[in-house]
Every structure is written in structure tokens, then in C-alpha cells.
């Protein structure tokens, strides 16, 4: 009977292990397949074409050029390798400027012909229209569509996922925003975190520590929305006043909130590491006539350095992945930040803010998954660092 139970337990444990691993693999696989779908998507919005006059020699345009043309930043075909001719843009909603309702028909049934004729008559015109509308016999040129290239995505400097006719998925501003905020968060959290850890491990009387430590661990349990709320109502207005900013929502506000959130991790890990420094090492140092502070700075901290480092990296991991608080205080402008006082936008905040609006299966949707993949790699790399540092630590203490 007992054997049977033990066997059952063994199988149950094995099974749960398998199921968990499988689920994790499925999630990662899902993330990757969805994300990779982005590179099979076309530059121009699905089902639409960019129609040109048949005289116009221009055949290819990058996504950025298309956006510039339709934003009227580029106004001559010369800039795109064509003749010296002014560009006129045409969107479907412009149709009523050119034609009356009778001409188009009640169901727009004549619109295709009319638009084709219009483009034919205007050598400088580029029309963004549904493919299905264009009559088969129309003598028009079309911009050749191409796949979205990884280069445009990973180093592209503009994130305009909802722009038409072609969206821009340059992730560099988001990546830069994430890195900036995390970097400054760690910059703020590190000195404070280490000071608190040293104070608690070495100086604080045990009564103070008994109160302090749970309090700091409690910080870990506060939902991030609350941090965001705190940041929005206190830090943001404060920064606005102190630095005289037009808006207080900035990378700095995000960094400060993140620093507060990363503090408990750093403090707890560093404090544990220092308290775990063998008593024999402290005694050896003190017995040589070293003062308490010399002992702490020359023996305790160096010997627990690798644990402290992994605490710091864990804190960075939290900062990189944090979503809600950052979303609330950073201002969410998807531009490459030139200073930490400007609004910026991080990867997790982008996913959280935009996934709800992105039509499932579309390029925007898949671009958000691609962001998820990038985030996955960043945190994966950070975890590898922690593994490496702590394994080196174990090897050293053997």
C-alpha cells in the first residue's frame, strides 16, 4: 500500500514538473511565433495599394518615405528619385472633395473608376485606396510592397504603429526609454539600498532591525499601481516645480518610482549577504586591530560582493520589467529621449497601453509581441548574469 502511494506521489510530482515546463515552453513559443509574424507583414496596410500615375517612374518607397509623403514632409517626387513634380496625396476620405455623391453612386460603385481617372489626370498624385476598388483595366502604376524588415524594426527611430498608409515600428525609442529609466533607477537605488543594507546588517541594534526589515520587505508587497499613484501625485508635480519642466511626467519620475520599488530587493539581498559573512572572518579582522568600519569595508563587503551584485541585477530585472508604475509617470512619448527630464516610453508600458487597441493578428499586434520577445531576451540575459555571478560565488567559497 505504502509503495503504491509513494509511486503515485512520484508520478504526480513528475507530471506537475512536465506540465509546468510545457506551459512555459508554449508561452515562449507563442510569443516568438506571434512576434516573428511581424516580418511577414507588408509595409502598406493590408488590402490597400498606393496608386501612381503611369508616367511616374517611382516604384519603391520605404515605410518612412510613405509616412513622410502622407504627412506632407516630403512634397516633391525629386526627393524620391522621380521627376521634379509636386506630390499630391489622395486618401479615400478625400474623395468627396473631388466628386459629388451622384458621380460616385449610392454605394460608391463608380468610385474606383473615378479615382483611377483622377490619378491618370494628375501626374503628381499618389492615391491610397483599397485594392478591390481599382478597376482591372486601369492604367496605373503601383508602389511595390515589401516585407517589414528587421532592420527597420530594431534600429528604426520612429514608433508610429497606427500611422496609415504604412505604420512605423521602430523600436529603438522604446528600448532606449527602457534602458534609460532602468539605468537611472539603479543609479538612485544603489547608494540608498547599499547604505540601508549596511546600516541594518552592521550598525542597527537588533530591535531597530526587527522593525525595519519587515517594513522594507513590506514595500515589496505594495501593488505597483499604488507606486504609480504616489509618483503621479507627489513626484511628478515636485519634479515639475524643481526643474521648471513643462510637464512633470518624465523619465526621471519613472526612475525615482522604480528606484523605490527596486530598493527592497537590493536591501534584502545585500543585507542577507552581509549577515551571512562568516563570523570567523569578522573576528579575524577585528583581532588584527581593524576597526569595525575597516572590517565592514575591507572584509564583509568584498566577501559578500557577488551576492550583493546579484541583488543589484535582480533589482535591475525588476526595473526593466515593471509596467504599471512606469506607464503612469513617464509621460509615454515614444521618442528617443535626449535627457532624463523628457517624457519617454518603455517597452512594458507600450505593450500594456497598446495591446487593447491593436487588432488581433495585425502588424501592430505582432509588433507588440516582438516587443515582448525583446523584453524576454533582456530579462533572460539579466537572469543569466545572476546565475553566473552566484555560481562564481559558490566556486569561490568552496
Amino acid at each position, binding site marked *: 500500500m505504502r509503495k503504491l502511494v509513494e509511486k503515485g506521489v512520484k508520478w504526480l510530482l513528475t507530471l506537475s514538473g512536465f506540465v509546468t515546463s510545457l506551459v512555459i515552453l508554449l508561452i515562449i513559443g507563442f510569443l516568438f511565433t506571434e512576434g516573428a509574424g511581424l516580418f511577414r507583414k507588408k509595409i502598406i496596410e493590408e488590402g490597400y495599394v498606393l496608386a501612381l500615375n503611369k508616367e511616374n517612374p517611382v516604384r519603391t518607397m520605404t515605410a518612412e518615405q510613405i509616412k513622410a509623403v502622407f504627412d506632407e514632409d516630403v512634397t516633391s517626387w525629386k526627393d524620391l528619385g522621380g521627376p521634379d513634380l509636386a506630390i499630391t496625396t489622395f486618401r479615400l476620405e478625400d474623395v468627396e472633395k473631388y466628386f459629388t455623391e451622384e458621380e460616385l453612386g449610392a454605394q460608391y460603385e463608380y468610385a474606383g473608376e473615378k479615382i483611377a481617372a483622377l490619378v491618370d489626370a494628375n501626374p503628381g498624385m499618389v492615391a491610397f485606396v483599397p485594392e478591390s476598388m481599382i478597376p482591372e483595366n486601369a492604367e496605373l502604376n503601383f508602389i511595390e510592397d515589401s516585407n517589414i524588415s528587421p532592420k527597420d524594426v530594431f534600429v528604426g527611430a520612429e514608433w508610429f504603429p497606427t500611422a496609415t498608409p504604412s505604420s512605423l515600428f521602430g523600436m529603438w525609442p522604446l528600448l532606449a526609454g527602457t534602458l534609460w529609466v532602468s539605468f537611472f533607477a539603479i543609479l538612485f537605488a544603489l547608494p540608498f539600498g547599499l547604505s540601508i543594507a549596511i546600516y541594518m546588517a552592521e550598525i542597527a541594534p537588533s530591535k531597530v532591525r526587527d522593525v525595519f526589515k519587515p517594513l522594507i520587505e513590506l514595500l515589496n508587497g505594495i501593488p505597483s499601481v499604488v507606486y504609480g499613484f504616489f509618483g503621479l501625485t507627489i513626484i511628478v508635480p515636485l519634479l515639475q516645480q524643481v526643474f521648471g519642466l513643462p510637464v512633470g511626467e518624465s523619465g526621471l519620475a519613472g526612475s525615482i518610482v522604480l528606484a523605490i520599488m527596486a530598493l527592497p530587493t537590493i536591501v534584502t539581498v545585500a543585507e542577507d549577504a552581509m549577515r551571512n559573512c562568516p563570523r570567523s572572518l569578522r*573576528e579575524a579582522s577585528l583581532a*588584527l586591530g581593524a576597526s569595525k568600519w575597516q572590517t565592514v569595508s575591507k572584509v564583509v563587503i568584498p566577501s559578500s560582493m557577488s551576492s550583493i551584485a546579484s541583488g543589484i541585477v535582480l533589482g535591475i530585472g525588476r526595473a526593466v520589467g515593471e509596467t504599471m508604475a512606469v506607464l503612469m509617470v513617464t509621460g509615454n512619448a515614444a521618442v528617443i529621449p535626449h535627457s532624463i527630464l523628457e517624457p519617454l516610453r518603455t517597452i512594458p508600458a507600450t505593450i500594456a497601453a497598446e495591446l487593447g487597441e491593436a487588432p488581433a493578428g495585425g502588424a501592430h499586434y505582432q509588433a507588440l509581441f516582438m516587443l515582448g520577445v525583446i523584453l524576454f531576451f533582456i530579462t533572460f540575459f539579466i537572469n543569466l548574469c545572476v546565475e553566473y555571478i552566484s555560481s562564481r560565488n559558490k566556486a569561490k567559497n568552496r
Partner: protein
Amino acid sequence: MKEIEARDVNFYYGDFHALKGISMDIPEKQVVAFIGPSGCGKSTFLRLFNRMNDLIPGSRLQGQILINGKDIYAPGVQVDELRKNVGMVFQRPNPFPKSIFDNVAYGLRVNGINDKKYISERVEESLRGAALWDEVKDKLNDSAYALSGGQQQRLCIARAMAVSPSILLMDEPASALDPISTAKVEELISELRKQVTIIIVTHNMQQAARVSDKTAFFYMGEMVEYDDTKVIFTNPRKEATQNYITGRFG
């Protein structure tokens, strides 16, 4: 000439009366062994001489301990100065996770010595003094953890000797070592007695008999007998001492 004097020392861990009215004189440049069963207070007593017990919360001392005529527990005594003069070697080798060189240089550096030439001279001298120089001279920058247990313990002795103490406390320095390393440490002790006064706590009675000039037997927090080592091991006056050294208890 007596270097250390303990006068009616009582020591308490909280309510526990660990040392009961101990008085003894320890002469200069002698090796004194403290023997006795576990928990008899010999290590506690040893750690009073460099005020290592200060670190234990709730401990309390009555009586006086004088080194060179000065009460080391008097207010205003610089504990780090005292500890520079009274070195200590612990039961388990406890080198710092630093290089061999930095381990020995540590005591000099924390005492404010920055002269590189002097430090490296002192490191070599100390390592030679600990009979370790020939084994490590080519790998001074290797981690001290790469050494064997016996080498580590000799490194710790070198580290303690580098700051030129006049007294060296040894708390069961060979208990974690193999017989060959133990023999080396014992050899070292008889070498070091030319320079310093040594107090050694040991469980090993043969060791006490081999290395020490005087031996004190502790039992239940009291010092039962203190005399020349020869007398203790051949003709003890107290029955408890007799029983202990003949192995009837302990």
C-alpha cells in the same frame, strides 16, 4: 617577569557564570597551555585577553586583567591598539577571501601603514616566520583559499605575526588539521616563543605536554590547577587534574 595578570576574574554570559574567580600570572616569552573538557571556560578566558568577548551581547566581566601592568578593561583603552599587541589564531583557518599577500598585509594596512616596500618586507618576514614562504613565494597573488588547510592555518599565524604582537593567543589552532600539519604548527610554536608570549587552548594533552612551559587545567569555569607543565603531567596536586590527564573523564 610577568606580562599578563588576571585578578579574580568572573565572567558571565547573561545569567550563566562562565568563569569563577580566576587569578593567574603569565610570564613573558613562555608558552602557556589551557586544557580542560569542552565548555570548561578555557576559550572564554583566552578571549578576554584581546577583548574578543566584547562582541557577545549580554556578557559581563568582573575583576581585572592587566597586560604589562595596565588594565585592558579600563575606560579609555583603545581596543584596536590592544588587539594589535595581542594577536589571535583561531580554531579553524580563517583567511580572508583575498590573495595570500593581501591576507598577510591586511593587519599592516588597517593599522595605517602604506609604505609598500615595508609591507612587502614584512609579508616576507612573516611568511618565513610561519615556515610558509618557500611554499607560497611564487603564488603570492593567488587566492588564499587555494592553499591546503594546514597552509591556511600557517598563513593565519603569519597574518597575526605581521603586526608584531607581543602576545599570541591560539584557540585550538591544530584541531582542524591533519597530523602532519599539526606537527608543523607545533614546530612553529616552539619557534615563535622566542619572540612572543603564547597562550594556547588545546584539547590535545600530548600537544600541551609537547609545546608548553606552563599548563593550566580548567574545569566547570574554575581554574583547578596552574603550574609548570612537567608538574601538571607528572605530579599534579589535585585529584581532578590527575583524573583528567589520565583520561578518566573529559
